[in-house]
């Protein structure tokens, strides 16, 4: 539990991204606040449709219409990115703040060699000779643990396995030694052994380069091993946040508790898992109040109002009227 009192590199304050359509308003991200400091990893956990990816896109200003950031601010080194002109955010995106996506085949251009793509990415933000840019690409590939980077630079994306492609995608994100990397489920499609290799590289990079990371995933066990802090999202809101140890050992929100219980663990063999009943709600025209109340055993009339943010020591915060009893 290192001191998180250092100034955050990236901070979201009351960030709201809504999708307006004829059928109603989808509050994909609703008043979300979090911060991440240099060299720290923030895990953003949630199930599909919880708004975790849209949160990531909102940070980089990548939300397409009909989606729109309707409120709040994203502060990068104290500067608000929301409402910034496109050419200004473009200067930061891929340079100071980079993103890694789930499917590396969508990130990489299938008809260009790796070196072409990486050199182009270098030129997008820096002026240097082609040879220098290629050297930078080579060096970054080696940094993410790519074996024989010189040969791999000549290759096309289809010649790589999924894990190798994801390494290239991470290398491209690292090209300009960004201050923040937003990673959206980058290891979900990979095998356990390859996932472990990538997590090892990422961990090393965050430590050595001091890069702040926002790691978006549905997998609590990855977060447990990798992240320093965690924010749990449900139906567009952060329902609980804090350090990994606080949140996973003594979860306050019934949803977090349910998620933890849903993961098969070593001491649950052969028994029924304690499941969360029901399904994730439809975000369109979501009624006010706690969105989890329809699946929650503790819900009562109070839950039809919006639960306030309750703060506990050590930066542990949650939104619930009936939190789990914790020591």
């Amino acid at each position: 539990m290192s001191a998180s009192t250092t100034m955050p590199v990236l901070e979201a304050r009351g960030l709201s991204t809504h999708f307006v359509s004829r059928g109603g308003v989808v509050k994909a991200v609703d008043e979300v606040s979090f911060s991440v400091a240099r060299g720290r990893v923030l895990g953003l956990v949630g199930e599909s449709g919880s708004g975790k990816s849209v949160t990531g896109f909102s940070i980089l200003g990548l939300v397409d219409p009909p989606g729109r950031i309707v409120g709040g601010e994203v502060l990068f080194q104290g500067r608000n990115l929301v409402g910034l002109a496109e050419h200004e955010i473009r200067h930061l995106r891929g340079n100071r703040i980079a993103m890694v996506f789930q499917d590396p085949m969508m990130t990489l251009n299938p008809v260009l060699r790796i070196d072409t793509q990486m050199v182009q990415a270098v030129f997008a933000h820096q002026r240097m000779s082609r040879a220098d840019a290629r050297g930078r690409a080579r060096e970054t590939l080696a940094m993410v643990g790519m074996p024989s980077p010189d040969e791999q630079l000549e290759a096309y994306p289809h010649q790589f396995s999924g894990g190798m492609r994801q390494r290239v995608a991470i290398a491209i994100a690292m090209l300009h030694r960004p201050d923040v990397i937003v990673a959206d489920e980058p290891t979900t499609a990979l095998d356990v052994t390859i996932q472990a290799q990538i997590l090892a590289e990422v961990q090393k990079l965050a430590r050595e380069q001091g890069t702040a990371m926002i790691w978006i995933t549905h997998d609590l066990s990855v977060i447990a091993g990798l992240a320093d802090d965690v924010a749990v999202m449900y139906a567009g809101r952060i329902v609980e946040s804090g350090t990994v140890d606080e949140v996973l050992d003594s979860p306050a929100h019934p949803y977090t508790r349910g998620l933890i219980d849903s993961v098969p663990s070593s001491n649950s063999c052969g028994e029924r898992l304690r499941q969360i009943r029901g399904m994730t709600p439809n975000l369109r025209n979501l009624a006010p109040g706690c969105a989890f109340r329809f699946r929650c055993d503790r819900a009562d009339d109070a839950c039809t109002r919006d639960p306030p943010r309750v703060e506990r020591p050590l930066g542990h915060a949650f939104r619930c009227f009936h939190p789990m009893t914790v020591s």
Partner: protein
Amino acid sequence: MSAAPGRPEEGSLPLRLTAQSANGALKSEAVIELRDVSKQFGPAPDAIARFGVRMGWMKPPRVARAVDRVDLQFTRGEVVGLVGESGCGKSTVGRMVAGILRPSQGTMLYRGQSVDAMSAAAARQAKLKVQMIFQDPYGSLNPRKRVAQIIGEAPRVHGLIDGDFDAYVDAQLQRAGLDPAYKRRFPHEFSGGQRQRINIARALAVDPEFLVCDEAVAALDVSIQAQILNLFMDLREQLNLTYLFISHDLGVVRHLSDRVAIMYLGRIVEQAKAVEIFARPNHPYTQALLSEVPRITARHRTFAAIRGELPSPLRPPPGCHFHSRCPHAMPRCSQEAPVLREIAPGHHSACHLNDSN
């Protein structure tokens, strides 16, 4: 266990293991048994190519050995977990068990009887008793059919419905935890978890005794995954089903399985009771896999990965397939393939390290 008729001699491959005879006692109750089953994928050589190869003018076509001499028994009511990385052949094994693919070599026995030797009608009956549930709950349902048609079609064709069609479909839906009122809907109107329930209802509608679940919960959210896993366990108790549970997720496999087989590049490298394999993994690959599984209880851990990636099944490394990534590799490992030997009662492992001590 004599060689199956028509199996070509392959002198370069390891001798058949004899330790398997210990399983003789199980044979009578084995629902399905794979004996020395292999599956290759590759172009079928035409007459000219065959002639050319025989005369030494042409190279034999490259084939991928997806499954390489696998023995596996399934006792009634048992859950067998099959674990491996993508491309290791675990889905191919599942498809052969389900009767979707035919083994290239080896025999598959259904209730002690070779499927190849069965009459067409008996083989069809045997196939019907083994049903499969696929990974993708979206791709595995016909989007143009209503749920009632999807579930009711197979039992109607096979003459399994005695009474009312609607009542039969309702019962199947209820068993899978779905509201029968939804039966007039189309698959796109359901969420992922519900679609997987439709898949389960469809598989169970023909009254199978064996379910092959190929990554059946991999595409689902954690909370939904727990619901489906619970459903699998309930159904197992109610219907005395036997499962082949194929997954890359060791947590899920550990939770559900009685016995676990670990595959690497087409071969089973270790096989034991679930409790045993997770407590005392023997093969270096199993050990590496287990150490790399992220766990909720393991915080701020340092990830130390096994090096390298799964080699291509078109050009598997000689000897032990794992030697290129193994931390304990010896010269012998690249020359001689280890056989699956019994190292403790019911615990089989294929590693040369077991010979030295």
